[in-house]
Structure formats: structure tokens, C-alpha cells
């Protein structure tokens, strides 16, 4: 058997790819359909070994004797408790780029989570067997078919038979349920592929796991692990933090770590402000009105929401630019604590002399708690609404009494976003209408804000600088890059590169700016797949 996987798109550990086996092509994540095994005949050439992977944690010696030794596939015969399944899958995923086939574990309900954890291939073994056992599967519920009065599904089987199905003989009923369950799983796989394409999988998984306590526990265990450079820093999807697991998203952890690392406020005075539903905050009605009435010139700002905390300088950065939370005005104790910790980190990093908190209610609790963590004195300026006359008056007064410094906000936005994204600063003259800004050095454009991903898109001058500094570089073989650079064409790459990063590629003749579709490590290790989308190109 000859098998190879060619990556098209990543969403964290989940990947959309083309699997080629003995000349046949399959789009992954995929399902091996044992009701139509002839279409997946390669499955009988796979070495499953005797012992399941789950034996490893019990008896490593015997596992070594009996394990799968397949060259093409990682066989994830995992079981049974949430923690074991998650740890096994992550262990397998982080140790090899081979396609992972997790047999006999997928159901329509757990499929999104399995794919989120890096599974490429599943099958319909459980849908078949459970079908014969009388289990009627849906994507977010499971029933004993005997309990059902109606069949809430549009698949061909349910459309044809309806609840009459229950009255059939066991063999016939089993066959039909197997087909129904398979149809639902297959449909779910299609949906998951779409979610990967749109980088939406995590939002979806957070909701889905709530259907089942074991799946919820699995996601919680997964969040205790580091997915390494597979986690993107920038995404084009909206972050929808609706659950407590939203607070432990890898993307969010990355943001908080990085934003504190690179925060260099230009003023010794900072104003803490509440978030707004509209993003970027600065264009919201409340922030616009506040800035119309009060001058924030020469002072820094930090905007607080749940679960995000961001300096004004990073408000165009993912996920600050791209999130939408349920707003009820209530803050739970955990929320206050979580957000206060993040705010405190920024206050400490910023070494401010004056901290003004122009916030009320839950936000004020956060500010208070953060101040106590950071050991800072805070001046509270809100009396009722942040736009009430007395609030405005007090804020003006506090600002009048505070030291100010001279800096240009847009310039700082570029400087911060560049440090965030590349680890080095960036300077020039900002132009454009907020939030679509461009940065010029002389007559050359250096970079522009990319609101789709919440990042900077750069131009060739800055690409040359990255090359000099050996940052986010991809060395490619000697050909003229066009459209997409494939992994086969990559000679070497910066290990820090994550999917969706803006990178600079080069060979002896050409160089240019592109967007990574995989991690740097993968570009080097994988033999196939989309490595970099070319955006701009020049000659050295």
C-alpha cells in the first residue's frame, strides 16, 4: 500500500487534507464506510496490530510486542475514560504527522471533538453496531429507537420508513438504523470539514461537548495540554466565548501571554475602560462618544471585557477584533478573578504611575481586584453610566491631574502589532481611515492592518528586514514561487511559524511575503501539502 497525506488547511490540530492511497483520493477528515467496504479496500492492508493503543498505559512491554506497526497510518485504538482517550490521542498527534485513524470510536456526537483533537480518519463501526443494538443516533442526542414516536431526521432511511421502522424485524431494523446512523455521521463529517475551512471548529466543539458530560470532561482535559505550534495566533473566524471552556482556549492563552510580553506603553498614565459590542472598540458608539467629550491624548488605555483584556494598541489584533460574547451585565466570581489577573499583568508590565478606572459594576470589581493583585492605586471616575455628566467630569479632572506623554496612537498600534506578530518593532508614518491603516516609510508602504485576520499584512521592505533578522522565514528550493508553495518545495523553515502567520519566503533569486498554511515544523517534515500562500514577491 502507498499512502500519503497532503494538507490543505489547518484549524489547530484539526486538518483538512487529501489522502491518497493506491491512487484513490479521499478528502479528510473522512469516514471509512464499512457498509461500502469495497470503496475503502485499503483498510484490509492496514496493520492494526493485535493490541489496542489503550494497552500501552497498562502494559508497555506487551504493547510493544503486539502493537500496530503500520507505516502509513497511526492507529489510535484508544479507550475508555475521557482522560485516557484525550491523552492518547494528543500523544499520537504530537508525535507524528501520519494520518491518524481512530477506529470504532466516532459517533455523530463526538466526531467534532475527535477531529479537533487531530483525528483524520474515523469509521462507522459504532454507528453500525449501535444501530443493530437499536440506538438511534443524532448529532446532539442519542435515543433508543423504541422510545421514539417520530424520527427527527431527513436521511433517506428515515424519510422512507419513519417511525414504522420500529416495527420491522431486528435484522431489517438493524440494517436500517446502521444506514441512518451512518448517514448522520457522514453528514457531520461534511460539516466539520466546512468548519475547518472557516476556522470555526473550536466554537462548534465548545457547544457540542455540552451535550454530554464525558465530552465536556474531554475538552477540559484537552485544554490542560499544549498543542504547540499548531495553534494559530490569527484567525478569520469570530471567537464566541459562550462557555467556561472558552476561557481555556489555546488561542486565548496565546494572546494573553504574548500581549503582556510585548506591551510597552508610552505613557505613565493609563485609563481602564469597558468594552463595547462593536469592534474595534474605538468605532463603537460609547467609545466614540467618550472620546468626543474627553481627550485621551497622551495617555494609555486598557479595555476590559470578559474574557478579554487588551491595551488600546492591540485592539485590532485577533481575537480582540473578532469576538462576540453573551451580554447580561452579570459577572461570575470566576470571571472577575480571571479577567482581573490578566489586567493586573498588564498593569505590572506597564509600570504606570497613575491608574484611572473609568468603569462601573462588574468592571469596577475587576479593576479593584486587579489593582490589589498589581499593588496599584486606582482612581475610580464613574458615577453611574460612563457617559453620565458627573462621570465625564470626574474623568476629565483625573486626566487633568495626570502626567501625559506625547505619542501617536496609530504609530503605537503598528509598533505593538508588529512586536506581537514578529517580535520586532516597526516604524513609519500611518495613513488611512481607522481601522484600515497603512504604514509608510518614505514613499514605500511597509505594512497594513488586515481586519479579516486581526493582524498586519506586510510589504516587501519589511519582508527584507525579517530576512535579515531571521524571523518567520521559509527557505524554498530554486523555483519561481507562484500561488501556493507546497511543502515539497520547502527546504527549511523557522520553527516558530504557526498556521496563518505572515512569513517571508526566499531562495537564491526570489523572496516575498506569504501566509503560512501549516506550522514551520510541518513545512520541513511533510512531503506534501499547502505550505505557504504567496502574496507578494520580489527579486533578491
Amino acid at each position, binding site marked *: 500500500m502507498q499512502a500519503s497525506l497532503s494538507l490543505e488547511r489547518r484549524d489547530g490540530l484539526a486538518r483538512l487534507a487529501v489522502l491518497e492511497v493506491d491512487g484513490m483520493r479521499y478528502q479528510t477528515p473522512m469516514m471509512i464506510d*464499512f457498509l461500502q467496504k469495497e470503496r475503502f479496500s485499503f*483498510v484490509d492492508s492496514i496493520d*492494526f*496490530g*493485535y*493490541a*489496542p493503543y*489503550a*494497552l500501552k498505559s*497498562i*502494559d508497555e512491554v*506487551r504493547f510493544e*510486542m*503486539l502493537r500496530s506497526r503500520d507505516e502509513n497510518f497511526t*492507529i489510535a*485504538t484508544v*479507550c*475508555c475514560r475521557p482522560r485516557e482517550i484525550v491523552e492518547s490521542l494528543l500523544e499520537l498527534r504530537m508525535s507524528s504527522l501520519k494520518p491518524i485513524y481512530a*477506529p*470504532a470510536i466516532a459517533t455523530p456526537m463526538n466526531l467534532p471533538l475527535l477531529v479537533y483533537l487531530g483525528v483524520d480518519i474515523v*469509521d462507522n*463501526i*459504532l454507528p*453500525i*453496531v449501535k444501530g*443493530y*443494538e437499536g440506538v438511534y443516533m443524532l448529532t446532539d442526542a442519542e435515543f433508543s429507537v423504541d422510545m421514539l414516536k417520530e424520527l427527527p431526521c431527513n436521511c433517506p432511511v428515515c424519510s422512507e420508513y419513519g417511525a414504522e421502522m420500529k416495527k420491522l424485524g*431486528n*435484522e431489517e431494523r*438493524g440494517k436500517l438504523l*446502521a444506514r441512518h446512523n451512518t448517514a448522520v455521521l457522514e453528514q457531520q463529517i461534511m460539516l466539520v470539514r466546512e468548519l475547518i475551512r472557516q476556522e470555526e471548529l473550536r466554537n462548534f466543539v465548545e457547544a457540542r461537548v455540552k451535550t454530554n458530560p464525558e465530552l465536556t470532561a474531554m475538552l477540559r482535559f484537552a485544554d490542560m495540554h499544549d498543542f504547540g505550534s499548531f495553534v494559530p495566533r490569527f484567525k478569520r473566524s469570530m471567537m464566541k466565548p459562550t462557555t467556561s471552556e472558552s476561557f481555556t482556549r489555546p488561542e486565548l492563552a496565546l494572546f494573553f501571554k504574548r500581549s503582556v510580553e510585548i506591551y510597552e506603553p508610552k505613557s505613565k498614565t493609563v485609563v481602564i475602560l469597558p468594552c463595547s459590542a462593536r469592534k474595534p472598540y474605538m468605532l463603537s458608539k460609547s467609545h466614540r462618544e467618550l472620546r468626543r467629550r474627553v481627550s485621551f491624548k497622551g495617555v494609555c488605555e486598557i479595555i476590559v471585557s470578559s474574557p478579554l483584556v487588551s491595551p488600546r494598541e492591540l485592539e485590532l489584533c485577533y481575537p480582540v477584533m473578532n469576538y462576540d460574547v453573551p451580554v447580561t451585565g452579570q459577572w461570575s466570581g470566576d470571571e472577575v478573578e480571571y479577567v482581573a489577573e490578566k489586567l493586573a499583568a498588564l498593569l505590572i508590565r506597564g509600570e504606570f504611575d497613575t491608574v484611572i478606572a473609568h468603569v462601573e459594576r462588574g468592571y469596577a470589581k475587576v479593576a479593584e481586584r486587579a489593582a490589589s493583585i498589581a499593588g496599584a492605586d486606582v482612581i475610580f471616575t464613574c458615577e453611574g453610566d460612563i457617559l453620565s455628566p458627573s462621570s465625564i467630569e470626574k474623568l476629565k479632572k483625573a486626566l487633568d491631574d495626570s502626567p501625559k506623554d506625547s505619542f501617536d496612537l496609530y504609530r503605537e498600534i503598528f509598533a505593538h502589532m508588529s512586536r506581537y506578530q514578529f517580535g520586532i518593532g516597526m516604524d513609519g508614518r500611518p495613513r488611512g481611515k481607522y481601522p484600515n491603516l497603512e504604514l509608510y516609510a518614505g514613499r514605500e508602504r511597509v505594512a497594513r492592518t488586515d481586519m479579516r485576520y486581526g493582524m498586519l499584512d506586510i510589504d516587501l521592505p519589511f519582508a527584507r528586514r525579517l530576512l535579515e533578522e531571521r524571523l518567520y522565514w521559509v527557505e524554498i528550493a530554486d523555483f519561481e514561487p507562484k500561488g501556493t508553495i507546497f511543502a515539497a518545495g520547502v527546504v527549511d523553515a523557522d520553527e516558530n511559524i504557526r498556521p496563518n502567520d505572515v512569513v517571508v519566503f526566499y531562495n537564491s533569486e526570489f523572496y516575498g511575503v506569504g501566509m503560512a498554511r501549516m506550522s514551520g515544523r510541518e513545512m520541513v517534515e511533510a512531503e506534501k501539502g499547502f505550505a505557504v500562500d504567496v502574496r507578494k514577491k520580489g527579486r533578491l
Partner: protein
Amino acid sequence: MVKPVASWIEKERFHGKAVRCLTVILRTRGCYWQRCLMCGFSYASDSRIGLEELKEQIDEAVRDKEFEVLKIFTSGSFFDAREVPPEFREYLYSLMRSMSVKKLIVESRPEFVKDEALKELASMPFEAEVGIGLETSNDFIRENCINKGFTFEDFVRAAEKLKDYGVRVKAYLLLKPPFLSEGEAIEDAIRSSMDVAEYADIISLNLMYIPSNTYVERLWQRNLYRPPWLWSAIEVLRQVRSEGIEIMCDPVAAGSERGPHNCRKCDRDVAMAIKEFSLSQNVADLDVSCDCVHIWQRVVELERYSRLPLVR
């Protein structure tokens, strides 16, 4: 006074008809090997057991009993002198003669099947049968999935030696060693039966059950192992018998979650059918049915991919 672990009267096939058989499980010092993954007999062993204690047990077991066949199970090998002193064998043989027992059935690992003991046995007026726990004719499986510690070649040598002395050979085969799927287990048992047929006078198919404090119990508790379906036993018996081979099976703990089972509803009937077949050797006795056979068919087909039990 030491009592046997257990003893009971049951039906046993003897020259084509069912006769009374006393089965005695003797407490001994235990099997020297004790490394088989499904071995749970150590609970029946006691290092203080010597000649006298063995005699006490057999005396207790035969008292007031009528039977034609005597079946002795130790926790290990009847011919292992460390476990069963030669003096006990003598004592037993003379006891049997005094009771006119017609047949003795014992068990032994092949390495203890030696000329000395066989010569003695061959000289007795009753028929003798020695069971050897071959489990499978596949050395890889026996070694890696059961950890039996001897080869098919070892078994063949022992069986031939037993034949030379006119002692009947019973080959124990294990249905569903750990790490085999349901389908692989069926195939292995059928293949093994064929391989063994020319060396054994009779084949006994043992259906795995989960003894306490065993390796296989740990697997079972973690859902890495499920005892075989009774349908699988029926499949093996039917196919092997259809080759003209004599094969019997006495399911232990059938229908319990630790024993071989189908869907619970049909377990009693199916186990009964297996027992009847074992006495009659008539495949028609295996004709039982239940809806769960369709689930079993899927399991046979698919467990080879899952490597994990698909159904409780």
C-alpha cells in the same frame, strides 16, 4: 482437614455414551508456571499442601459417590512432582482400582509428560486421558497473547508420547485469547482444531471467562477485553464437527458478564445447546436462535478493526 476446592458429579462422554463422572478440583502447591494471562488458579493453591493433604482431599471427594469416570483438576500439572508427589499418584491409582473406576482424566503441561509416569499409568486397568492446555496451534498467539511458555512442537511431542503409551490425549483450546478479535478468535480456534486433530483423541474448547486477580481481568475491567460470544463457540463447534472432528465444550460462567455470553436473554438456551452437543456430537443440537445473532455477526466482522470490544 483439607477439603478439595470443589467436586461434583456430571455427565461425561465415554465410548459414545454419557456416563457419570466425578470431577474433583484439588488444592495443590499450584502451577510452577503461573504466567498465563488468564490464569486465576493461584487462589486454589497453597504451598503447605503435601502428600497427606492431597490424600485427605481425594478421600473426602470420593466418599459415598458412584461414578465411572474420575476427572482430576489441579491448579497445574498432574505429572509435576513438585505439585503432585508420585506417591499420591500411586495412592490414587489404587483407590480407583478399588472402586473399579473406568477412566481417569488429568491435566498436564507438556514438559511433564515423561516416560516414567506414563509407564506407570499405562499399566493400570482403567483408561487414561491427559489434557494439555495447548490453547492454540499458533505459536505467536500462544506466546504473545497467552504467555503459555511452550510451543506447538512441545505439544506434538507430548501428544505422540501419550499415544505411544496408549493414553488418550485431550487438547484444550482457548476460545478468545486476549487481544484477538471475536472473528480472529473463531478462526484461530477452527484452525487450531484442524491442526490438533491428528494428535488429539478429543478436543475441548474452553470459552474464556474472567477469573479474579488475573491479567485478563485487568483488561476486562478497562474494557479492553470481552469474553467470547456463545455464538462464536457454536460457530467453532459446528465448523470443526463438520470436518468429522470430535470436539466438546463446557462453558463456565456462561451468561454472566465475566463469562462467555450473548445478549443475556438467550444465554441459558445457547449454553444448554452447547452442552447437549458436547455429549451428542450432533450439530443439530446447535440449532438455536436469537435476534442478537445479528449484532454478533457485526462484531465478528468489525472487531478486527476496533481491537476493542464493541458490545458489552
